[in-house]
């Protein structure tokens, strides 16, 4: 596309225009994907709660042969039209610019993530050599958006959610960043594309502990699942978006759903091998052997989406299964368990990775096999250690509670 513009304007402007159109296409595709994502999530969530989920809305005349009424797939479109038609209310006392900019900031922080997501071997917005650091940096903008919404709404519940957002999102950023360092360390690069190319064996088989830490902290960063304290409706009404209506509320909702799916995409890219098709050598895809470059790219794209949907399904599963945490439990869990665990995990993986010879030049499945097996064994040992520590803590906690509730029957347990 750059070549097309070069006939009209200079090279610099041509690159700029091509990137602009690329950004428009990727951003719009991401936002439109939420229509499918929301429908999928509601369907899955319905099953988890023993109900059907959306099953009524379709297009065109109703009848036995109109398949568009199957599975209620048009529910999201109906919701979209509804939310566009709703009145946009801004209360007196709100801080105008802060209030109006907040939903844009939150949505922007999610859409910006899509710039470095490699959809296939040749399909990527920009292959930044600081891709993973960029992901973290952009994530921080969402926190600002939540704070702006919380403060600008001039509502005490919103303000409480703003405080919670700082406590939760900043805290959980630390294990997330430390977990992200592990794939970076193993691939030897921060570029998302290089990380995928280096996964001759998907990293999830070598470092399952890191994957677990990433998923937990990512879910907390997203503010959903058991970590939805920002909008805990039983405590602070709807949290930071209590004063928003119409499309502004819609933007918060879209960004949350899109963030969840983007988290699935990132899991697929960093731990599940991204667009790499299992048992297909990398050079087939890169040189377009047998099938041609476009077909390989398309297959890779489908592969990435399938892996992302699997990860997304796990995230919905967790969200629908676990009850909401209390704020002090949430912070204790992070600072006393997840942060130390992620640091130990990083140190162990780094030492093991350096101790195995030949890990700085992995160019085939055979090269990756021994390091992956060793790391898997080490990870299993870590899982056992963590399990032992948790079991011990649980025993102590149960003894402490029992001593408080039935002091006459149980002898006092040592407390610390």
């Amino acid at each position, binding site marked *: 596309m750059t070549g097309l513009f070069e006939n009209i304007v*200079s090279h*610099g*402007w041509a*690159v*700029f225009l091509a990137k602009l159109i690329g950004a428009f296409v990727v951003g719009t595709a991401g936002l439109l994907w939420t229509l499918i994502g929301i429908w999928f999530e509601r369907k899955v969530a319905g099953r988890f709660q023993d109900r059907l989920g959306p099953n009524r809305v379709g297009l065109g005349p109703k009848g036995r042969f109109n398949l568009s009424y199957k599975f209620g797939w048009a529910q999201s479109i109906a919701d979209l039209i509804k939310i566009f038609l709703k009145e946009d209310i801004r209360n007196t006392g709100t*801080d105008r610019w*802060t209030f109006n900019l907040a939903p844009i900031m939150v949505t922007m922080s999610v859409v910006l993530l899509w710039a470095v997501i490699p959809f296939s071997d040749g399909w990527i917005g920009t292959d*930044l*050599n*600081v891709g993973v*650091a*960029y992901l*973290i*940096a*952009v*994530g*921080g*903008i969402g*926190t*600002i958006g939540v*704070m*702006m919404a919380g*403060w600008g709404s001039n509502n005490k519940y919103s*303000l409480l959610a*703003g*405080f919670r957002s*700082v406590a939760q999102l*900043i805290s959980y*950023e630390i294990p997330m960043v430390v977990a992200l360092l592990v794939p970076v360390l193993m691939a030897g690069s*921060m570029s998302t594309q290089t990380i995928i190319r280096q996964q001759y064996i998907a990293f999830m088989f070598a470092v399952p502990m890191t994957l677990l830490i990433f998923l937990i902290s990512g879910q907390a960063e997203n503010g959903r699942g058991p970590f939805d304290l920002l909008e805990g409706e039983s405590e602070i009404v709807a949290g930071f978006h209590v004063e928003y209506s119409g499309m502004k509320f819609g933007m918060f909702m879209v960004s949350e759903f899109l963030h969840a799916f983007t988290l699935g995409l990132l899991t697929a890219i960093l731990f599940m091998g991204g667009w790499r098709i299992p048992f297909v050598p990398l050079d087939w895809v890169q040189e377009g052997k047998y099938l041609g470059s476009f077909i390989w790219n398309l297959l890779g794209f489908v592969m990435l989406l399938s892996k992302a949907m699997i990860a997304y399904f796990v995230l919905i599963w967790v969200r629908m299964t676990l009850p909401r945490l209390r704020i002090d439990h949430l912070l204790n869990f992070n600072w006393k368990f997840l942060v130390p665990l992620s640091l130990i995990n990083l140190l162990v993986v780094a030492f093991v990775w350096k101790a195995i010879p030949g890990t700085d030049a992995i160019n085939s499945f055979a090269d990756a096999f021994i390091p992956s097996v060793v790391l898997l064994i080490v990870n299993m040992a870590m899982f056992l250690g963590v399990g032992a520590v948790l079991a011990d803590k649980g025993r102590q906690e149960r003894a402490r509670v029992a001593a408080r509730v039935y002091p006459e029957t149980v002898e006092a347990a040592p407390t610390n």
Partner: protein
Amino acid sequence: MTVELLVFLILSALTLGGGMLVVTTRNLFHAGLYLMISLFGVAGLFVLLTAPFLGVVQVIVYIGAIAILIMLAIMLSPNITNLPNPFTAQWPVGAALAVIFFVMLITVVTPVMNELGADDWVNSDQLTVDTAGDVPADGIATLGEELVDPHKYMLPFEVASVLLMAAMIGAVLLVHPGKQAEDVIEDVA
């Protein structure tokens, strides 16, 4: 006009305009937001100078952590809107310091620019000359190696780490429920 120049002008306007608004606005929360805009402009300038890692770190550390904590402190304080007078009696000192700092920057930057081959850079358009040959291809790897190289920047790096560690331990001790801050200071002394 090249794209680089346009982007440079926009980023400069963000940096300077944001900085200006930080000190003139009468709403502390807005001042925090303007500070973020200004820092974001600086991050963009880093990227424009082919140092994307520094730019990203600027966003992570300054906007993602420091500015957000400043905002949290602002949100917890009373009477943050409608400050009566944004200027205090210290403004002459501040102006003098700004002038000194500006002169210092000019004296540092001019030799560097001459070394890069841009003579009389203040009046020429050579600022946009791309000297990509001097930039290492893999900047992050170079940066990482220099930071742990004993002959380069290992000592400053370690000293900064120890300083941050001390600050963190200090913060933990200050809020430790079992001990008051005075006791801690007595223990240390």
